């Protein structure tokens, strides 16, 4: 456990052993073969998605299910985009504030819990942590009534609130673990200079937290973007995020139009995939801190 937790909250490079030199051995060739086989298996859904999304309606015969399209058409892509783009815009409006606010709250909490040891600090931390493991089904009914009672409108505003509140545990965890590794002397020096806690936070701690902020922002961005559970309970197809719109698109019609829904699935996944490709190290950082979370 410890090995992983200590890494939490910073970008992670899993490292790489020096590439081997010399001739191919039987063992190594075998290893490559197995690895390549797994690559093929993992990429099967990607092939299916791309091929199906470029097929026209006349190309849906089951006998040709795995074949390339007879005629390549972008009609599905156009339909999917016009259906999903309003929901994608709403998802952006929801995810950006949700990620920013929860990163800020998490950073405050993490700082306090890592530095100021008040009696019961550990217990408070564990109690907060438990909040990220609970199945949200166990609060959903009264949560619905509470959000309604508070007068928060269904859709984007409700979802921002929920992602912020239920993001507190994981963001606190990531920042706390990161701040644990900040040298105590740095904080002490500021205190000796007479800086209060807030000023220490603003001038010393915040500037060195950039990597953790990226990790947390990416984590919150990804989980809010991919969320379906809150979406289905707190929004409708008129005001909901892209997961809900995609699910309605794919499951709505009696006759499933796989071409359109597969193109839609790619549109819905593109932002998180881009983040993964471009900021992989930070993405990993969030994943690893997940080792005391889910």
């Amino acid at each position, binding site marked *: *456990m*410890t090995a*992983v*937790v200590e890494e939490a909250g910073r970008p*992670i490079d*899993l490292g*790489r052993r020096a*590439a081997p030199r010399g001739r191919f051995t039987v063992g190594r060739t075998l290893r490559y073969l197995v*690895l390549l086989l*797994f*690559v093929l298996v*993992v990429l099967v*859904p990607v092939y*299916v998605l791309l091929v199906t999304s470029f097929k026209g309606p006349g190309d849906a015969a*089951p006998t040709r*299910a*795995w074949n390339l399209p007879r005629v390549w058409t972008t009609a599905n892509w156009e339909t999917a985009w016009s259906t999903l783009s309003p929901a994608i815009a709403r998802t952006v409006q929801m995810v950006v504030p949700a990620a920013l606010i929860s990163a800020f*709250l998490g950073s*405050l909490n993490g700082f*306090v*819990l890592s530095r*100021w040891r*008040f009696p019961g600090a*550990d217990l408070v931390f564990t*109690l*907060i942590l438990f909040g990220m*493991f609970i*199945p949200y*089904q*166990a*609060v959903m*009914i*009264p*949560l619905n009534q509470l959000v309604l009672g508070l007068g928060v409108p269904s859709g984007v505003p409700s979802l921002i609130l929920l992602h912020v*509140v*239920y993001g*507190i545990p994981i963001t*606190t965890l990531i920042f706390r673990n990161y701040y644990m590794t900040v040298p105590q002397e740095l904080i002490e020096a500021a205190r000796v200079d007479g800086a209060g*806690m807030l000023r220490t936070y603003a001038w010393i701690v915040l500037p060195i937290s950039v990597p953790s902020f990226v990790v947390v922002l990416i984590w919150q961005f990804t989980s809010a973007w*991919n969320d*379906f*559970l809150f979406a*289905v309970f707190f929004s409708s197809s008129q005001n909901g995020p892209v*997961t809900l719109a*995609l*699910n309605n698109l*794919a499951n709505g019609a009696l006759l499933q139009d796989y071409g359109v829904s*597969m193109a839609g*699935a*790619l549109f*819905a*996944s593109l932002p998180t*995939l881009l983040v*993964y490709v471009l900021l992989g190290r930070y993405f990993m950082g969030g*994943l*690893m801190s*997940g*080792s*005391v979370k*889910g």
Partner: protein
Amino acid sequence: MATATRRRAGVRRAVRRAGAPLLLLLPSLILVGVFVYGLIVANARQSATDNHTAAQATGQAPTTGVGLRNYLDLLGSEEFQHSLTNLVLYTVVFLVGTMVIGFLWAWLLDKPLRGEGFFRSIYLFPMAVSFIASGVVWRWLLNSNQDEQASGLNRLFQMIGLDALQNNWWNNVSVGIVAIAIPAIWQLSGYVMALFLAGFRGIPVELREAARVDGASEWKLYRHVLFPQLSPIALSALIIIGHMSLKAFDLIMSISKPANYQTKVPAVDMYVFKSAFDYANAAAVGTILLVIVAIVIVPYLVHTHRQDKR
């Protein structure tokens, strides 16, 4: 007199020292207190009422307490027992699948290898995709049609001469839920691989060298040196995957339908009850899920908490 003043000053200092951090924490503490713990209690209270109709849900008809009746009814019903059986099946397959494949990938990638980054990125990418999006593709793959009508994986099996492998996937009443575990394994094996790989990389090279110098065979090296070092990571992976599995919902909604008997699990039941304005039963299912998850998570949190202290 002097001691009293000093004591008062001491108290004031203690309050000030604890006060500032508490003030900063307060917004989050209140939010977590209300939204997690307060609502867990509120939910448990609703689960002990006869709030089963739309009129009651909207407050137009009164509700009365029924104690644990809803729980007894649920746990006694064949329908809900089927959900629990499905949950166990799904969890076992999901856990075994991700642990075996994740470990195998990490093990294959641990030794020096050209193109390691490429393999790693491919294996891990499904993790960045939502269950809803991957469910679209997997529903196509897990199409239950067979023979002439076959599409998806069943068609692929025919094409490579493995006709015998054709089956009706998630439409099988008793083990259909296992088919839903396949995409889940596809999505999270890479995550388990990353955990194990970080574990492998965390083991000091000297430890391996020392074992080799001592003449330990490859198997002994793993058995006595590497496995013990990896076991905390294996535990983390089990906990994370296990508790994700207990909350399974998105994939089932995306591939199957909430009303489908063969793929229902407690999280889906909860949604169905809620949609039918049966708030009492929805709340009861939620609390049952919470208890199941807590049985797994609480000992783990206590355990890591103790380790942190050491």
